[in-house]
């Protein structure tokens, strides 16, 4: 089924040697890597969000760049700029940190909209225009962005249209006490060892081809469409539902999950497992969610749960 040297499960196992727990985060990173999308990680500081992204880049053996988003960041700090060379009398292009296989946009909501747009344009188009020239981004190209939900002072909320560009949004939760004990035992103050070159970029590209060939029965496609349509039904707490991009994302991630599980066909469990991560950042919750103190996650879960499985 997979022409690659290594199987996706190998990468997942390697990541777990560095990251304790956080299985959902690691799976989301792997599925997004296979499905060719970008990941938004939201969670309090200290939960290994950045470490997970670094470990992924190190294990894949591709290039990795980290951009710390700050209020004074400029678009050219991300995409690159043109510099005048006095000796040759011509402009030369200096490529920015976005030109890497895996880009970590740390605290993406700390930069203004203009800077976020520069990153998100590259995410969507897989190319960047600097002056008169257009440069393709490497393949695979995955942006992993992090956000801290607790410290909102001095942040710029990502608009819904930009959130839609992220294939999945993962809520990174605190580890269990048992996992925290293992963290203490494994690292004990030392820098965690990174898995190095466990798979290659060619393996990832082969997985992508294999995932596209995973079979999705028409009944399952109908379920995917029904799930996304359910988000658009009249709801007390949701003003706007998910776009057709969510439909495509659900199908792509279900295929990726089936591939990682060693199957060449998707089942309802694949769709259901990835649905919260695909839908949670694509719904526009209204003010009543805040005034009634409703947990948005419970709304997402109830919308998903109300659709009969095939």
């Amino acid at each position, binding site marked *: 089924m997979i022409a690659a040297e290594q199987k996706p499960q190998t990468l997942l196992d390697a990541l777990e040697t560095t990251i304790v727990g956080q299985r959902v985060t690691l799976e989301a990173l792997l599925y997004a890597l296979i499905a060719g999308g970008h990941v938004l990680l939201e969670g309090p500081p200290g939960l290994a969000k950045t470490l997970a992204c670094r470990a992924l880049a190190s294990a894949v053996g591709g290039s990795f760049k980290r951009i710390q988003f700050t209020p004074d960041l400029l678009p050219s700090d991300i995409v690159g700029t043109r510099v005048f060379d006095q000796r040759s009398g011509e402009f030369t292009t200096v490529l920015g940190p976005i030109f890497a296989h895996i880009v970590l946009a740390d605290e993406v909501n700390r930069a203004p909209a203009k800077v976020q747009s520069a990153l998100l344009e590259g995410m969507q188009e897989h190319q960047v225009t600097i002056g008169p020239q257009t440069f393709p981004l490497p393949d695979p190209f995955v942006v992993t962005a992090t956000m801290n939900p607790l410290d909102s002072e001095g942040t710029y909320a990502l608009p819904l249209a930009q959130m839609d560009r992220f294939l999945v949004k993962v809520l990174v*939760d605190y580890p269990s006490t048992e996992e925290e004990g293992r963290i203490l035992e494994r690292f004990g103050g030392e820098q965690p060892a990174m898995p190095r070159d466990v798979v290659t970029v060619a393996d990832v590209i082969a997985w992508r081809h294999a995932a596209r060939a995973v*079979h999705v*029965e028409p009944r399952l496609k109908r379920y995917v469409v029904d799930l996304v349509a359910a988000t658009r039904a009249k709801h007390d707490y949701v003003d706007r539902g998910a776009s057709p991009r969510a439909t495509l994302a659900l199908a792509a991630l279900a295929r990726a999950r089936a591939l990682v599980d060693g199957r060449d*066909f998707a089942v309802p469990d694949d769709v259901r497992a990835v649905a919260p991560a695909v839908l949670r950042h694509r719904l526009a919750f209204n003010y009543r969610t805040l005034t009634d103190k409703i*947990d948005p996650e419970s*709304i997402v879960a*109830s919308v998903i749960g*109300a659709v*009969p*499985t095939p």
Partner: protein
Amino acid sequence: MNFLAPVVAQASAQTLARLHVRSFVMTAEPKSLHVGDTLRLRIVTHVDENVGQLDNVTLPDLSGFDSLGDERACSSSGHGTECTEILALSPTETGDRTIAPTTLDAIDARNGKPSHFATNPVTIHVIGAAPQPNGVTRALIDDLLKPIAILILVGAAAYALLWGFGRRPRPKPALPRPVPQVVAPPAPVDPLPPLIAALAAERTRPRVLAVRDEIRRRVGAREDETLGDLLRRRAAGDDRALVDVLRAVERASFVDDDRLPGAIDEALAALSNWKRA
């Protein structure tokens, strides 16, 4: 067991249970019905903790419905607790009626904050009696249709009279009075063996799906449950052979057409093992 007790006032944070709410869903069946019919409103809550009941649950306003009763149950396993409340309701008014979300107040175990969880709302389409004709329609009936109807009735009566005179009916021979027979109530028929036999005879996707639907019904799968949900819920009590059947039938239901015959063979073998076990 009062696990869905409505709260009168907002509970203070000190009285709230600390819960990891996995799902909180409200469904109705049927969603389209007539005034006076009965619908089942089901509220299902799944939490990670083992609890005997859920407090601080507020049911929505159910005006426009008569309450016919309710059932409540909570079951705990190694995967937490699932609490279900089923309300039997009967609509008293026609039109689309939206039942607002049911809410649950608890300390969210993920962040330690008092939270207000809500289910989805449910919209019910209530159909009344057949609509009465409006004024224009009634005038049309009075002006045009009534004279025509009278003519037809008069004609039919004349024809029946003539036909009756021309043909005198023969007296019918007396039929023997049927002897009342005592019929035993039909024995309950297990629908699964015929479905498996039909699958063995005709190895097609619809036959697989029919077997899958019957097995899911038999093991008590809800319509919103995937195979994974079902296996997690029933993990403690299930036998290995049944789990193999569920997996094999799931595979045969979703595999591509080229691999379908092989998947059906595996499903039939698993069903055979299960039957033996």
